[in-house]
Each structure stands twice: as structure tokens, then as C-alpha cells.
């Protein structure tokens, strides 16, 4: 027991590794939110009129909404007037044309984060769009992608260069009326990524975005829109970090995916926002709306997420399975420690015939953390022969943590088959004993068991992310056996 407690102490003292602040000049709007701020953001971005109108509609609608309180989350009220809604690293007016023009300090930041843009991009063949505070900093590999006809650029650039695409698709999956945080995001989102894969194109490399909140008192509101035209394929990765600060920072993102006939989108996230310290001070409030729309026949959208950071996570990546034979997948590992809270899950909305969905959710709760899986599987009368399989497992580490499961199943078609399974347990002493007597240290044994527990999900991650995710898990949970 003594080794265990020691390791628990070590774990509790484990510091957040990405908690540095990059000291660069920033162009930050003072805190507060009114129509003028929305107009200011829009004008700073040089947006066309339709964008401003949309933002204003969203803002006016947001003012009529109340913050949702149904999730199993507790936090002091958020003062939306105390947040700065725009922060851009101070740079040359026109923005960088290539990596060489990017502020070296920024690049250093990414080095520290372990994402050297050059090397990583070159070695891993990953094209990275990095969003720092609210503005997209650099997008690598643009040329190569352009040759394939793939559009991958910061959202603000897309609004300027491809306004017809943005106007056609923006808000069609997550309308600004969708929920409180989506409405807020629609009003004030400052940047994000836009991806368009043309018909029949298989994106030649993995696309990737790194998000980082740097400035104090800022909120980050990015918006990602991915459109996969008929027969195309894309895999997209997203990673997030933030500095350590005592106050809570708000992150309210929106991700919209659209898959046409025979198209496939794979969206992977490793979320490691600052989770706050061991007493729950500071940390990111992560309120994210992610939804994919399988519009076409035989389309497929797959969400894979590793949620390790954030003081609060409120996130339900969902699939609307509209197309015939469309497929939705959700693979999730969520780790909460200390006083972290996570309420996460997915929605699978079956509308099309023969639509299928798979949900695999693995939750690990340690310290005094509370974690919930909340999911909905809805089968419409039109979804003939729809099929769903859901599995959610929770692992508990420590007597003060909690793990909860709230799956909703609403079935209106008799030919559908919906299955749900959930288990909750701790690492069994006999499993540990077995590993120990084979000469593994307790820490290694726990890591091995936890990794085995999460294997089904890690298997779905792109290789380089899988390694990162595993390390992240080991760091987060070292010896957390009570």
C-alpha cells in the first residue's frame, strides 16, 4: 500500500508539461462582448457581408439562450463579459507567406510542444495548420495539397478565397441555433481550418491542426469545416494545449463535417488542454460541438478522440447518418484525474436505410475526478435495418472518483438492432499481482493494463498519434492505483 500511496502522490504532483507561456506581442481586444465586438472581429478578418450578417444573427440568438445545465458538471458561473474574444499574435499585417516569415518565438513554442513543423511535416508527411490563440499561424504543405486539388487553409483565408463554398456549407451541420456554445462560437469565432476534398480525391497526406491558447483572459473559438465530395477520403488530426494559468479559460469550438456519396472522413483528436492544478485551480473549460453529416450514400464518418486535458470537457461528437448505407463511428478514451470533470459521448442519428454505427468509449477516472458518458442512439422510422453497437467501459482509480453512464436509445423501426453494453470496475488486484510476479513494476503493470483497456480505441488512431496518446495516458495516470 505504501508504494501505491507514494505513486499516487507522485501522480498528483505530476506537472502539466505544456504549461509555458510564449512571450510574444499580441493584438488582443479588451474583454467584453457586444455587437460591436462581433463587428470588430468580422472587420479584422476582412469578411464579406454575409459572414457578418450570420455572426450577428448568431449573436442575437445567443443572447436569448441560457447556458445548459443538464450535464453532470459543476463550475462557477462563467462571466462572458470578462473574456477577450479576439487575440492574434502581433505580426506583419499580411500574415506569413511561408514558415520563414512566422515569428521564430512561435515556432519555438511548437518545438516545445513537440510539434516541430518542419521536421514533423517532412517526416510524418503531415500537413499542419496551427492555430495560436485565435489566429491560424501557418499551414504547411499547401503546395502539395493544392496539386491534388485539396483546399486546406485557415478559415479566415477560406472566407476570403472561397466565399461561395463557405456560404454553401457553413452552419449546415451545426446551425448557429444549435446550442448555447455553438451560437456563441458562431458569433465570435476567430479562425479555424477549412478543408475541401474534391470529387474522387484521396487526400495525399494526413491533415492536422494544433490549437494553443496563449494569452491570458482570452477565449478560443475556432471553427473547423471539412467537406468531402463524392468518393473522396481524408484523415484529419487535431491537437490542443494551453499554458498554466490560475483562472479558467473558455474554449468553445465547433467542428462540422460533411461527407457526400462514398466519401470518408476520419477525424482524430488528442485533447490535452491545461487541466488545472491538483486543487482544481485553473484549467480550460472545453465546450465543444462536433458533428458530422453523412449526407451521401455509403459515406462514412469516424470520430476518434483521446481526451486527457481540460478542467471541464463537454463534448459529444456526433454523426447524422442520413445517407443509405452510411456508417458512423465513435472511438473515445477519456482520462480524468485530480478535479477534472468530463461529460462526453456521442449521438448517432440513424435516418438512412442500412445505416450502421459503432460506439466504443473507454473512461478512466482517477483522483477526485468525475466522468460521464452520455450518448444517444436514435433510430428513425425511415432507418430500415439500421444497426448500432455500443460499448462503454469505465476504469476507476481511487475511492473519491466517479464514473457515470447515461446512454439514451430511442428506436422507432422494428428492423433495427441496437445493442448497448457498459461495465465499470477497477484494476483487479489479481491482474496487478500477475504482472508484478512476472517482474513488472507496479507502474509498468498499471500502464500496461490501462493501455490494454484502451487498445480498441488507440488502434483507430493514426500511428504517430497513437504513440503520443499512449505516452499522454502514461503521464496522466502513472501509478494511480489506490
Amino acid at each position, binding site marked *: 500500500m505504501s508504494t501505491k500511496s507514494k505513486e499516487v502522490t507522485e501522480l498528483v504532483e505530476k506537472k502539466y508539461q505544456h504549461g509555458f507561456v510564449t512571450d510574444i506581442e499580441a493584438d488582443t481586444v479588451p474583454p467584453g462582448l457586444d455587437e460591436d465586438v462581433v463587428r470588430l472581429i468580422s472587420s479584422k478578418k476582412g469578411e464579406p457581408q454575409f459572414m457578418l450578417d450570420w455572426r450577428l444573427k448568431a449573436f442575437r440568438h445567443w443572447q436569448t439562450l441560457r447556458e445548459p445545465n443538464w450535464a453532470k458538471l459543476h463550475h462557477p458561473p462563467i462571466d462572458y463579459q470578462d473574456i477577450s474574444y479576439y487575440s492574434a499574435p502581433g505580426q506583419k499585417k499580411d500574415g506569413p507567406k511561408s514558415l520563414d516569415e512566422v515569428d521564430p518565438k512561435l515556432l519555438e513554442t511548437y518545438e516545445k510542444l513537440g510539434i516541430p513543423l518542419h521536421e514533423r511535416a517532412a517526416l510524418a508527411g503531415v500537413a499542419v495548420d496551427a492555430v495560436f490563440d485565435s489566429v491560424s499561424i501557418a499551414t504547411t504543405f499547401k503546395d502539395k495539397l493544392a496539386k491534388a486539388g485539396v483546399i486546406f487553409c485557415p478559415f479566415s483565408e477560406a472566407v476570403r478565397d472561397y466565399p461561395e463554398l463557405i456560404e454553401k456549407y457553413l452552419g449546415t451541420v451545426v446551425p448557429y441555433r444549435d446550442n448555447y456554445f455553438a451560437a456563441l462560437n458562431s458569433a465570435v469565432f476567430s479562425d479555424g481550418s477549412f478543408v475541401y476534398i474534391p470529387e474522387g480525391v484521396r487526400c495525399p497526406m494526413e491533415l492536422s491542426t494544433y490549437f494553443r491558447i496563449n494569452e491570458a483572459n482570452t477565449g478560443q473559438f475556432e471553427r473547423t469545416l471539412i467537406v468531402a465530395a463524392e468518393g473522396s477520403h481524408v484523415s484529419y488530426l487535431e491537437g490542443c494545449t494551453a499554458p498554466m494559468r490560475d483562472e479558467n479559460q473558455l474554449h468553445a469550438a465547433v467542428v462540422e463535417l460533411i461527407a457526400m456519396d462514398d466519401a470518408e472522413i476520419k477525424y482524430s483528436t488528442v485533447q490535452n488542454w491545461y487541466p488545472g492544478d491538483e486543487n482544481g485551480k485553473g484549467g480550460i473549460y472545453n465546450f465543444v460541438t462536433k458533428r458530422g453529416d453523412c449526407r451521401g450514400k455509403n459515406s462514412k464518418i469516424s470520430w476518434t478522440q483521446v481526451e486527457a486535458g481540460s478542467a471541464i470537457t463537454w463534448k459529444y461528437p456526433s454523426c447524422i447518418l442520413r445517407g443509405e448505407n452510411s456508417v458512423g463511428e465513435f472511438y473515445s478514451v477519456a482520462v480524468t484525474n485530480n478535479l477534472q470533470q468530463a461529460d462526453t459521448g456521442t449521438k448517432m442519428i440513424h435516418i438512412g436505410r442500412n445505416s450502421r454505427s459503432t460506439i466504443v468509449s473507454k473512461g478512466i477516472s482517477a483522483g477526485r475526478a468525475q466522468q460521464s458518458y452520455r450518448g444517444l442512439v436514435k433510430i428513425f422510422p425511415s432507418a430500415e435495418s439500421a444497426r448500432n453497437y455500443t460499448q462503454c467501459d469505465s476504469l476507476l482509480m481511487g*475511492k473519491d472518483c466517479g*464514473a457515470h453512464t*447515461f446512454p*439514451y*436509445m*430511442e428506436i422507432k423501426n422494428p428492423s433495427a438492432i441496437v445493442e448497448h453494453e457498459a*461495465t465499470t470496475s477497477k484494476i483487479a488486484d489479481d491482474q496487478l499481482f500477475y504482472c508484478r510476479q512476472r517482474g513488472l513494476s507496479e507502474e509498468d503493470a498499471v500502464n500496461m493494463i490501462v493501455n490494454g483497456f484502451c487498445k480498441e480505441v488507440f488502434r483507430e488512431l493514426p500511428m504517430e498519434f497513437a504513440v503520443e496518446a499512449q505516452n499522454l495516458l502514461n503521464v496522466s495516470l502513472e501509478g494511480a492505483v489506490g
Partner: protein
Amino acid sequence: MNTAGLEKVWRDRPADWLQPAREKGMADFLDTGFPDRRSEAWKYTDAEPLADRSQAYLKTTPVALDSAQLPTESGDSLPILFVNGRLAPGQMLPAAPGLQVASLNEAPSERQAQILSRLASFPGRPREDLSALNAAFISDGLWIELAPDTVLEKPIEILFSSDGAQAAAQPRIIVSVGADSQCKLIEHYSGSGAGLVNAVTDIHCDHDARLEWLKLQLESTDSLHVALQNLSLGRNSRARLVQIELGSQLSRNDLQANLAAPGAHVDVYGLFLADGQAHMDSRLEIQHQAPNTTSQESYRGIAAGQGRGIFNGKIIVQPGADGTDAKLSNRNLLLSSTAEIDTKPELEIYADDVKCAHGATTGQLDETALFYLRSRGVDAAQARAMLVRAFAADIVTQIPLERLRQQVETELSARLARDMETDTP
């Protein structure tokens, strides 16, 4: 929802010895009124028909007709008949060594303080259930007490019948099972007409007690039925609960079992058939409050015609309840394209040394099994009905009394034969 009318009706009632409980109930009820769809517990069920009928029916105090046919002791149970929520006139209460039974309306004065204290401590949830309304308008009920070390061989069978009158039955059953005692309790609801039932049952089992409980709901298709059972289990006590819901236009049942002391165990079996226009909402909450408590729950639902079946099963493990082992299984059959099943099995766990699992499935009949029966010359509708009966059998066989088991089987067969005729795709 307007509750002013109900308040006036309540004020105009003559006061009786239950007044303190009625006052608390009314105050709690007025605080929240009838639950609405914004309450998570009523997400799938609209309480408005209940509110409307309560407003209309509670104006008159239900009267039990003198002509009620009193049950004869059939030999396999100790029957007690209630008509429209009131003890039938002339009904004798069973007597046995160690057993005390009293009706609430005619409770002996030395019992009254005890009953009032149980009513006052009942853990109702105004926003989620109608127990406060029941307390305010208790029509009658029973106090059942089994002394320690008593074994009651025959089950007590409480027959709740409605005679077609526009009556709002609000019965309250209060049961105490003494240490090391054993008893069986049956709540049997039936009747005709567009009645309204809002029943509350409160059961305490002392340490090492054994309880078998059955609820059989076979009300008419015009009736509205709401019931809540709260069960508290002491150290090493065991309970087996069976809940069968076959009747009513709208039925809502809340079954709560609290495993309050180490070693307590509960098995729960449930079955509903929502066909025709029926709407059936079954909620189950198992609270593991103490270490080394165990539970096993198995619920089956069938929705046919334009029926809608709802199941919500929640297992809660409180901090410190280490050694909890809980398993919940929910299986549903959806037999027609106009029927619906909504199911939500939940786990809320605040302790780490636990083993909890739940599983839920919804689907249709096995095609290969159907084909097998058809190839043996059984016609389609019959084959389907046979398979549905087999699906229900796992729960039906848990009914502790042969007579009632047969009654349920007969009812199921008749109903399924009809459903299969109309629903055959």
C-alpha cells in the same frame, strides 16, 4: 399546470387523523405541481393526462360500492380487496401469528403515530414522482407489520380494483418486515373503465429478512396508472421483486430499492407489453448505499401496435459502497413500425472497488427461429406469438404464485395473438 383547483378541492376535504401527512404532501406538491417534460425523469412521458384526470377525479372522494364481490380465500393467498382505492366494505383483514394488518382509514389510534412518522420520512421527489400528491389525497391503504422471526407462508395479495367509476384511487401501503422474517406481498391491479390510480408502497426490511414482492398490473386500456415503490433493505436481507405491466393506456412505475446495509441483496425482474395505444414507462433505481451489497436486474419490454415502451434503469453506487456487484440487463422487442422503444440504462458510480455492468438491446424476432417454426408448419402469426411468449417467459416464470403465472400467460397469449394478426409485416 394549474394546481389552484386541486388546492381548493384539498382544502374542502374534511380533516382526518392523516392531516399532518396530507399537509406536508400538499405543500410539497404545490411547490412543483405536476412534473413536465423538462424534468429528465419525464423526458418520454407527458404527465398532462394524469394532471387532467387528477383535477377532474379528485373532486370527489372515491366510494367503494357495497356490492363489491369480496374475494374468497382461494387457499394460495391472503386476499385483501380495495375498490377505487378504498378497502372494500366488509373486507376482513388477514390475521396470523406475528402479523398485524390495519387499514389506514381505520387505523387503531396506538398505530397512528407510527404511520405518520413513516409517511413523514418517505423519500419522495416532488419533481420526479407523484408521491406528494398521493400523500395529500390518500384514499386508504394498509399498514402491514411482520414481527421478527415470523415466516408467513401465504402471500398477502392486495387486489386493487376499479369498478368503472370516475375515481382517483390514491392508496398507500406501508410495510415493515421484521428481522429474520419472511413474507410475500402481491399488488394486483385490475378493473374496468377510465380510472386513475396513483399508488405508493413503502417497504422496510430489517436485517436478515426475506421478501418476495410482485406487482401485477392488468388494468383496463382506458385507465391511467402511476405507482411508486420504495424499498429499504437492512443488513443481509434479500428481496426478489417482480413487476409485470400489461394494462392501462398510460402507465408509469417507479421502483426504487435501497440497499442500505452491508450484505443486502436484491433481484428485480420486470416485463411490460405496450400494444394498442399503450404508453408504458418503467423506471428502476437501485441504490447501493453500503459495502458488499449486490443486485441483479432483468427487464424485458415488448412494444407492438402503436405502443410505446420506455425503460430507465439506474444503478447508483454511493461513496464507500465498496464491494458492490450490480448487473442490469434490459432487452426489448420492437414488433411494429408504429411502435417505439426508448431505453436508458444508467450507471452512477462514486466508489472504486465495484463491479457494475449493464446491457441493453432492442431488436426484432430472430429470423432463423421464425423460419424453423414456419418450416415445421406453424403459421407466421402463431410462430411470432410463440417466440414473443418465449421472450417473456424468462420473467413470467419468476412469478411466485402458480395461479397468477397462468393468468399472465393466458393474458399474454390472447393479446399477442391479436397483436400478431394486425402487426404481421
